């Protein structure tokens, strides 16, 4: 009799796990993992606000990429199969510094022009844009001696003054103007299919 009194009272908590599981599954189903990552882009101003000035851009400073409605590539007038080859071509084009008369004058003048058709798939568009941005990120990263990955990390967090300094150095910010801008011109798709 005395032994029985010493037994500790216990609450049966085995169903607690089940309750927690229910809550867990509810959250799994109703929420999404934040995947706010992607290719960032700054759109040009409203087409109606731009004053129509006829700026003549020399042919040599333009790197032309065209994609048609069947997702075929035309780079600098030549058909191209392999999308990943664009990256090296752009680097060569931008870093030409006036040596080759058919290539760009300087990184500042160089413009990558990317034109698609209305029938081009978004998948192809993303692939090409990825290569163009990759080429620029590679060049920026090289200028401050880091890897491409590290460059993007730096660019993601500009609140840190050290990162901001590296970021400006990579892009060549001097007196408010960029020496090494990322000039990507995305033309409005042609209306004809």
């Amino acid at each position: 009799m005395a032994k029985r009194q010493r037994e500790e009272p216990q609450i049966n908590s085995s169903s607690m796990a089940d309750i927690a599981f229910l809550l867990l599954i509810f959250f799994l189903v109703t929420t999404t993992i934040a995947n706010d990552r992607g290719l960032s882009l700054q759109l040009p101003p409203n087409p109606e606000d731009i004053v129509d000035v006829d700026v003549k851009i020399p042919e040599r400073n333009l790197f032309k990429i065209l994609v048609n409605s069947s997702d075929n590539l035309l780079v600098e007038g030549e058909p191209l199969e392999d999308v990943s080859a664009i990256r090296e071509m752009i680097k060569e084009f931008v870093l030409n510094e006036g040596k080759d008369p058919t290539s760009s004058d300087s990184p500042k003048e160089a413009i990558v022009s990317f034109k698609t058709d209305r029938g081009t798939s978004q998948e192809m568009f993303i692939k090409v844009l990825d290569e163009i941005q990759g080429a620029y990120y590679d060049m920026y990263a090289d200028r401050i001696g880091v890897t491409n990955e590290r460059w993007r990390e730096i660019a993601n967090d500009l609140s840190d003054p050290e990162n901001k300094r590296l970021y400006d150095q990579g892009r060549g910010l001097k007196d408010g103007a960029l020496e090494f801008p990322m000039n990507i011109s995305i033309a409005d798709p042609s209306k004809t299919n």
Partner: protein
Amino acid sequence: MSKFKKKANTKQEIPTSALPDIIFMLLFFFMVTTVMREVTINVKQRIPEATQLRKLQRKSLVSYIYIGEPKKASEFGSEPKIQINDAFADPKDIIQWVNEQKDELAENERDQLTIAMKVDEEAKRGLVSDVEIELRKANARKLLYTTLQSSED
């Protein structure tokens, strides 16, 4: 005899009292790392892959546009459509929507509004660029094409 009895009394159960704690830990992890679905997505979303991803820093400044084939093809057809908030929209509705989104932000942050476009990889560029032209008119020029990390890199 008494010795034998004591041995028989030892419990064979595995203590499970820590199990709820473990599950709660998982639960809290999910509660912290995820966000509630704010809208029901009515369009198919096969997000394209890319390597040169950039991250968005401030969620409060981001608004989403979904583009893709409607999930209920029998009702809405199989042409890709634009979805903003809970409903399908036309490109001409976008200016008004952007202004509504801007009104929700503090005045000094309005020009930092970022539009994240979740575009199905099968969607055609024509529709996407119609949206872009409207965004330019609405002066919401920071754009992000949501992509997945490519496994090749």
